[in-house]
């Protein structure tokens, strides 16, 4: 039975996530204490590592950029009623798309043409990779969760195959392509700030972060301001009602996954065009899966996803610093902390809702409860 919590909106969107975050930190702190470390010291190191210096902050934002793309990808599919677990593979294809056009043409084309081309290729490749499972779901009844998971494996083996057999630079020992020409490299944020006369330490943070902000705004406009987004959400929320309205559900499945795949593909822009400057293995590094947690925590809303991405970016970056700074604190502990946050803010996000509702009823005067 679905018990109504009837939390006011502000409590649902602001108070509850903060409480969940606090509980996750407490639980993680308890584990830290259990293994004999000082929780406050670890937390301090974590916060400092994430945002303490301009350089650390840049790394946090760089990680967050990829999470915004994959988180949005999960959210768009979710609003279409689909669970896209294939962000990882779509991101691989995005990188492949961007990398291939760069390898072919970066020596001949100027940056102003090359970079948009790479963005377009990344989005298109991710889109193409996602529409296959979408088609199978819509017209052949194959479950999209299964097919997208399988397509992750296909994507990573495809990348390995292409790199090892075709793209590896001759004579090189490592499995990566030849570097692109300079026209295929997105400017770093420190470059861009330097043009404006601001000094900023060098970091992997690049112009993709602006693309991520644009994507978040774009997704918001698409879902809630356009007819196409309206139809997509209608199908996601009630396929029978959509049918009654004359909306073609199967086409909406294709559309949702196409947009979703394109967004995931943009991870390739951040990693390949923004940082690596060449095609290589494992550049997605789990961002596709982190995107699921990000979307879950961000309630599938672009603003929530941006905030959740920042949190996860901070955890990645801060966690790496903690593992470096604090003696005996390994990366695994950081993963544990992330696990707690996903658990409390995502999977168990409503566990504390009835408690909060009861508390609010007691604390607040009648009129104040409707937010």
């Amino acid at each position, binding site marked *: *039975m679905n018990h*109504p*919590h*009837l*939390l006011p909106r502000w409590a649902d969107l602001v108070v509850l996530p903060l409480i969940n975050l606090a509980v996750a930190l407490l639980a993680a702190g308890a584990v830290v204490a259990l293994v004999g470390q000082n929780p406050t010291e670890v937390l301090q190191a974590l916060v400092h590592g994430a945002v303490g210096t301009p350089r650390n902050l840049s790394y946090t934002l760089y990680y967050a950029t990829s999470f915004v793309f994959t988180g949005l990808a999960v959210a768009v599919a979710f609003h279409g009623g689909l669970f896209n677990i294939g962000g990882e593979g779509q991101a691989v294809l995005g990188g492949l798309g961007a990398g291939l056009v760069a390898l072919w043409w970066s020596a001949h084309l100027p940056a102003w043409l090359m970079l948009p081309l790479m963005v377009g290729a990344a989005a298109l490749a991710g889109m193409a990779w996602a529409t296959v499972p979408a088609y199978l779901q819509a017209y052949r009844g194959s479950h999209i969760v299964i097919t997208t998971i399988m397509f992750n494996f296909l994507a990573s083996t495809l990348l390995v195959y292409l790199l090892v057999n075709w793209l590896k630079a001759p004579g090189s020992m490592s499995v990566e392509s030849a570097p692109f020409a300079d026209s295929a490299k997105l400017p770093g944020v420190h470059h861009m700030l330097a043009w404006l006369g601001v000094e900023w330490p060098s970091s992997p943070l690049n112009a993709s972060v602006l693309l991520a902000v644009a994507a978040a705004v774009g997704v918001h406009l698409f879902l809630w*301001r*356009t*007819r*196409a987004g*309206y*139809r997509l*959400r*209608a199908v996601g*929320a*009630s396929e*029978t*009602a*959509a*049918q*009654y*309205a*004359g909306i073609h559900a199967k086409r909406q499945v294709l559309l949702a996954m196409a947009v979703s795949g394109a967004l995931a593909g943009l991870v390739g822009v951040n990693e390949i065009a923004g940082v690596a400057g060449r095609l290589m293995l494992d550049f997605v590094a789990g961002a596709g899966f982190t995107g699921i947690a990000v979307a879950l925590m961000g309630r599938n809303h672009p603003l929530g996803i941006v905030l959740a991405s920042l949190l996860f970016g901070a955890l990645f970056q801060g966690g790496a610093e903690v593992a470096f700074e604090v003696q005996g604190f390994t990366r695994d502990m950081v993963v544990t902390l992330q696990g707690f946050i996903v658990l409390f803010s995502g999977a168990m996000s409503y566990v504390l809702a009835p408690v909060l*509702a009861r508390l*609010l*009823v007691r604390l607040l005067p*009648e009129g104040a*409860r*409707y937010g």
Partner: protein
Amino acid sequence: MSQQAKAPPVAPAHATPWAVEMVDIHKRFGAVRANHGATLRVRSGTIHALVGENGAGKSTLMSILYGFYEADSGTLRVNGQPVRIRNAQDAIALGLGMVHQHFMLVDTMTALDNVMLGAESSAWLHKAIPAARQRLQDLMQATGLHVALDTPVGDLPVGDRQRVEILKALFRGAKTLILDEPTAVLTPQEMAQLFEVLRRLRAQGSTVILITHKLKEVMALCDHVTVMRAGTVVHETPVADTRVDALAQAMVGRAVHLMAPGMALADKAGEVRLAAQDLHLTDAWGVPRLKGVGLQLRAGEIVGVAGVSGNGQSELLDVLSGLTAPQSGRLGLNGQTFEPSAWLNPTQARQLGLAHVPEDRHARALVMGFEAWESAALGYEAWPENATAWGWMHRRAMQTHTADLMERFDVRPRDPLLVSAKFSGGNQQKLVLARELGRAPTVLLIGQPTRGVDIGAIEFIHGQLRRLRDAGCAVLLMSSELDEILALADRVVVMCQGAVTGELPVAECTETRLGVLMAGGPLT
């Protein structure tokens, strides 16, 4: 506390004891007071009706009795003993049994398995099954609740499934049965049988609490009636001392005029707006659903489609509204003709001025997760008033328009930003009507316009349909409520097993004649 002061005098010793007493029950969900000092006393061995509009708090009260919720405050007594009911198991142990409106049955299991499920007398099924069968046969004999025990429940008619639910409760030793809107899904014949069973149970000493909207049933069946409004009990009386209009007034809080006889306007009916010929439809499992249905709909008339549910009425509505293409047949709509190869689709239908209020409000008419203004554009999202040619929605204008519709159709609360699911059933239906009627359609197809809708809203909805008819719209009304059809329709078409078995002007309709046609027999 004030409980002591509020408690009415205890029943005299010679009267039958109370089977259930719920005293001064309070229950709130967040800011909503679902029950606010409600007191219900049910005498043992009686049939007790609990009536009230949607949201009056009857379901919450019964959920507290059955252990789905715990009351915030108040006293519960069963057979005179103070009790605490924390879950359904506690309730069953106290001899309470609930028959839900939406059946809680496993469709693929047989009736016997369903009844036994969770109450097996032994972990070894070869012992439990014969024991259960024996007990069930005794029960069926005693109560008259006969069902085919070895048929999968999914293959049983709705009335039989309900019997299985009742048997389930009795099998678990229920002495007090709670029935939630039991007649909503039944044909008149099944209803009569159910009443017979309930009377027999009463004669055997069982107690029945009947949650219902339908005051006619209360008058026909019950001994006592409790009326709830706004979370509390407003009226309580022996049925013998009251009348339908008094009860209706107590429910709504003002006088209501229900079921005014339809004024036959057949002579005023204008040109043919919709004409269907020889429609044949076979579903995906090869079951024929429509067998040569034909009908005509003229401007300025309401045509009622009567029939036991599941005899092709829903499919007819789907075909006429363009949701399903038939295998053969032909449809004329406002001057355009459609063949199965290029059947009408919902978008075309709307453009041709056909509005459709589907019978399944939750699955079809609204997207429950959408805000009211979004639901108010469903199906019309591409119309110029809602979106530009480039596909940008006119958000503000749509919200203003919805606020306006809510005013005209009395949708409460008047909040275009409220999520559709949070409106009560009646207000959801009014929102759907506002969307479909607001564009002054020339043809309206409407299924179950007042299912699950409270009395005040029924009066309003009927008024809207009559007004639309008088304005020259052609209305096809499908309803499982014969009373509703008789009250509204100018002409009645009766369906049985996918075919039209008869057509009568409303003046010539009697329940018997319609009953014969609904059963498929010719009128003699």
